[in-house]
């Protein structure tokens, strides 16, 4: 009984601006930070829906209320007005969130849809399509409770299987057709030697080459790396692997090399006469973040040839934040990961 009261699913319905399929997909990919199973649904003429399977994830986020706050903050930061509802049943969560979105779009006092019994919700909240809703309203069927009173056979004859299926999903008698979106492939780059290489200079050059490839891949996605996994495969020796965490998202190859350089220089490459050496250098950007456009400018606020920077580009505050992040990275690279701290609270 207690387990049933846990909100296992969160339904998010973006209201304003109305997202297209690609934007909804991007929103769903961002939701992967909260749970590994996310379902996105975009049907023409109906509200877009993002459904999060939270089973096993609530403890990580400090409980449902805290996660709800985080979701609200993340969407509000991007200027997306949305409706969110958590429930033990995916169908009920989707119905309530859709009803809440209808309230928000009609500028009515929001919140009633999250509290009233499911039977009192409007039939539009069941996501059965505009035609079906119009036909039901013609015969004075307006709420879910009134729809439930009609026989299933009559509903199936008139509207097909969808209406009955949505009713069952909302009541929990039937599982939601959850199709999790695939996880995006992280940006990666690699350099392979023709033969094992134990020369420090060549290894450093190859690492820089791989870093430039990685930065190119990150630039194509307009992202910067926050956590970088490095794997050095060595012939005759076990592979060396490690993860570097960065203070701010960056795709500056020179800065990444400055962070990696002390670690690469400390690494034992092997003995060439024994056939040992590095065979492959693989880099994977495990975590990425947004980088303001034009952060490669030499002087903050100034574009090329002394012209003013483009409007919307990085300002002095972005430059200061980036400089501080790079300082933290450099200090951590030389002095150790625990060398830079925040004061205790």
């Amino acid at each position, binding site marked *: 009984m207690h387990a049933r009261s846990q909100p296992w699913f969160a339904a998010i319905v973006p209201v304003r601006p109305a997202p297209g399929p690609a934007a909804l997909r991007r929103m769903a990919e961002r939701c992967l930070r909260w749970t590994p199973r996310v379902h996105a649904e975009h049907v023409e003429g109906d509200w877009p829906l993002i459904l999060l399977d939270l089973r096993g994830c609530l403890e990580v986020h400090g409980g449902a209320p805290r996660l709800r706050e985080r979701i609200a903050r993340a969407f509000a930061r991007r200027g997306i007005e949305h409706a969110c509802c958590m429930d033990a049943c995916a169908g009920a969560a989707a119905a309530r969130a859709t009803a809440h979105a209808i309230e928000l779009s009609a500028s009515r006092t929001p919140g009633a849809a999250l509290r009233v019994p499911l039977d009192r919700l409007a039939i539009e909240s069941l996501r059965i399509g505009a035609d079906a809703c119009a036909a039901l309203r013609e015969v004075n069927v307006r709420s879910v409770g009134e729809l439930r009173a009609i026989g299933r056979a009559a509903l199936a004859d008139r509207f097909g299987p969808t209406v009955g299926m949505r009713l069952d999903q909302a009541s929990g008698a039937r599982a939601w057709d959850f199709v999790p979106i695939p996880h995006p492939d992280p940006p990666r780059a690699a350099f392979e030697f023709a033969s094992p290489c134990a020369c420090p200079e060549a290894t450093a050059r190859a690492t820089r080459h791989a870093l430039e490839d990685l930065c190119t891949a990150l630039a194509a996605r307009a992202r910067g790396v926050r956590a970088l996994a490095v794997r050095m495969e060595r012939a005759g020796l076990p592979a060396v692997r490690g993860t570097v965490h960065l203070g701010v998202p960056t795709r500056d190859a020179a800065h990444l090399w400055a962070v990696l350089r002390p670690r690469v220089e400390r690494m034992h490459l092997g003995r060439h006469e024994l056939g040992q050496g590095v065979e492959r250098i693989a880099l994977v950007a495990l975590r990425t973040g947004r980088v303001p456009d034009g952060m490669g400018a030499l002087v903050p606020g100034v574009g090329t040839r002394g012209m003013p920077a483009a409007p919307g580009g990085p300002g*002095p505050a972005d430059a*200061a*934040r*980036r400089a501080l*992040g790079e300082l933290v990275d450099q200090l951590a690279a030389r*002095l150790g990961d625990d060398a830079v701290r925040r004061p205790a609270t």
Partner: protein
Amino acid sequence: MRLERPHLLAECIARLERTCGERGAGGPRVATGWPAIDAHLGGGIASAGLHEWWGASEDVRAVLVQLAWRAVLQDDAERPGQCRHVAWVGRAAWPSPDHLVRGLRAPLAGMFGATRIPSWPDARLHDRSILVDVPAHDDGARLWAIEQAARCPGVCAVVADGRGFPMPATRRLQLASSGTLLLSMRGPERRAGERRTVPSACATRWWVTPASGIREVPWLRAMHALAARIVPEPAWTVRLERAKGVGIDPDACPEAVATEWWRTEGVPDAPARVRRVRAHRVARAASLREARAS
């Protein structure tokens, strides 16, 4: 010869004057809050340069927290929104976390008859501080870390453990701190008069000692308390012994008494969260009144 682009020349001259002015005596300064010393230095210590502080570590640290507060407040006023940080390099320079929040003792400020101004605690320095730990007995790593922090455009002030640095190291730090306030703790003297003989490239040299008199004589403290003129405890005597470009008589160095003013001075505006809750309550009360009226 006719000048092709006079506006470019004028711009170059203005830029040179600006640069020279910043490094010269008229450059930006951080007011120390000690009127006698500020008047002597022409408005405060230069916000770009190396300043050395001699004295026991705990005394110097307490005074430097005050200067770090001044630097952060001035940086906020000059560069709003940039949120530049303060770096504390070396464990000897690390302050206590509660020293980084000002106004925690504001409710006590009116205990001795003074007018109490309602204020809120301010944790800006706490939120904008990074503590850098360097390996013990590795002077090279410590010097490198201080230099990196001083060169960072995202840092407005560096408070560093500068004990035992020779002349070349201080010259490096002086060059690195061309855009940052660098406060170096040189530690106590190992022999009398050491601070005057150790060569250094610093812009100013200071000597910090615990303030005597009121602090050490119990009956005097009681008398001052009764007269409602007690100096907030503890207090330190700060003496400016050397300043480049300013003539200082060694027998009559400017002095001031430094107190922990930040403990009793908060910000008058409530935090955003409190303001939000208040606004919500006011709106709710208004809606209830409307509902009753209707």
